[in-house]
């Protein structure tokens, strides 16, 4: 065996197998949006949304809300984009047409499926399960993620929700990962802008 030492070399070289560079990998956040195609957003005018608080779903925290400069930054950016689309923010007592939910899913196992060849609405729900699908010309992908955080934006239909305690989510944006980034503050703002940019139908 001594004279066949060279056979070991390739196994050593084989250890160089690939993983993407983390900095390049998280340079920009993933932005995924879903919409109910039957909705005509031009028929909606007003919305309600808290400006200082966003929700929190976490395995590692008992808190269910984030109240900080971070939450204010997020809500301000969402409001800016909605206002630019000619929607008007009103109070809940003024019977808004839709409500905006914003929350972070943190340290919770996240299931994500991206169906490249077909499309269907996933089973939306708060809590430890979250799913979404998108469509583009790639094969099917399933992804399991844990110990990361997603920022979720949702528009819930209040106009057509008379007598129903579970308003239908008619638009959503999933943005992640909001923790692992070189500049998470700036990148999440860019990602929110991108979520609206790729949702041109979302306008009065």
């Amino acid at each position, binding site marked *: 065996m001594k*004279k*066949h030492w*060279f*056979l070991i*070399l*390739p196994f050593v*070289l*084989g250890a*160089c*197998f*690939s*993983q*993407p560079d983390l900095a*390049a*990998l*998280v340079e*920009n*956040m*993933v*932005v*995924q*949006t*879903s*919409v*109910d*195609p039957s909705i005509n957003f031009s028929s909606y005018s007003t919305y309600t949304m808290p400006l200082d608080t966003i929700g929190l779903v976490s395995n590692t925290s008992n808190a269910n809300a984030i109240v900080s400069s971070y939450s204010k930054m997020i809500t301000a950016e969402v409001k800016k984009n909605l206002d630019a689309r000619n929607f008007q923010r009103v109070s809940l007592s003024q019977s808004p047409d839709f409500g905006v939910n914003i929350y972070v899913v943190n340290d919770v196992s996240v299931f*994500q499926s*991206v169906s490249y060849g077909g*499309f269907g*609405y996933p089973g939306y729900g708060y809590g430890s399960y979250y799913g*979404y*699908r*998108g*469509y*583009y*010309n*790639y*094969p*099917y*992908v*399933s*992804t399991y*993620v844990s110990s*990361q955080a997603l920022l979720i934006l949702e528009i819930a239909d209040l106009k057509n929700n008379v007598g129903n305690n579970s308003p239908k989510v008619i638009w959503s944006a999933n943005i*992640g*990962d909001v923790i*692992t980034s070189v500049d998470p503050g700036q990148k999440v703002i860019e990602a929110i802008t*991108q979520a609206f940019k*790729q*949702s041109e139908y979302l306008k009065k």
Partner: protein
Amino acid sequence: MRVVSIILFVLAGSSAFGQYYDKLYFLNWNINEPLTNKRFVGNTSTRGGRVGFQQMINENFAAGLDFTWASYDDYVGRQTYTSPTGALTTDFFKYVDTYGATVAASYYFFTDQKFMPYVGAGVGASYNEYKLFYNVFSSSEGSWGLLLRPQAGAWYRLNDRSSWALHGSVQFDFSTARNTDQGYKNFSNLGFQIGVVKLDW
């Protein structure tokens, strides 16, 4: 008598040279061009290798085992994919890592030459891992398959007495290791190898 002795010695030497080696150890750098589903990974792979051993069965035939591996990668820059019901903006890092073990046989056209061209074939098992990364999300799935490999090559000894030779070959790999999620019913590639051969006895 002295002349006879010299002649016998030379003949014996020639005969011994004919039996000079009967084992071959290969070590190669493997360069591969993917041929299947280049939409997932289409770049030429320069990260790969091959090690092998063959035993001469007779003066023209050798058979043995070898192990190959290669890593393919591709990158799709950040862009937005849209549909009537949604959109996704991200970039993708994509990889296919392939491993193969084959029983291989080679036919050498010459015997005991410095230049030794051959043709061969291998059959064995392959394991491919198909990986996709975007931001902190990832997908990885491996699959086993049957591996078939026709190949041709040659090795060349720099001098008659050297037990080392330079080696080059071309091969076609066909593996049934599939991954329908990423659009692979099979995986095939064209490979080029350069390396060395250690001759032993």
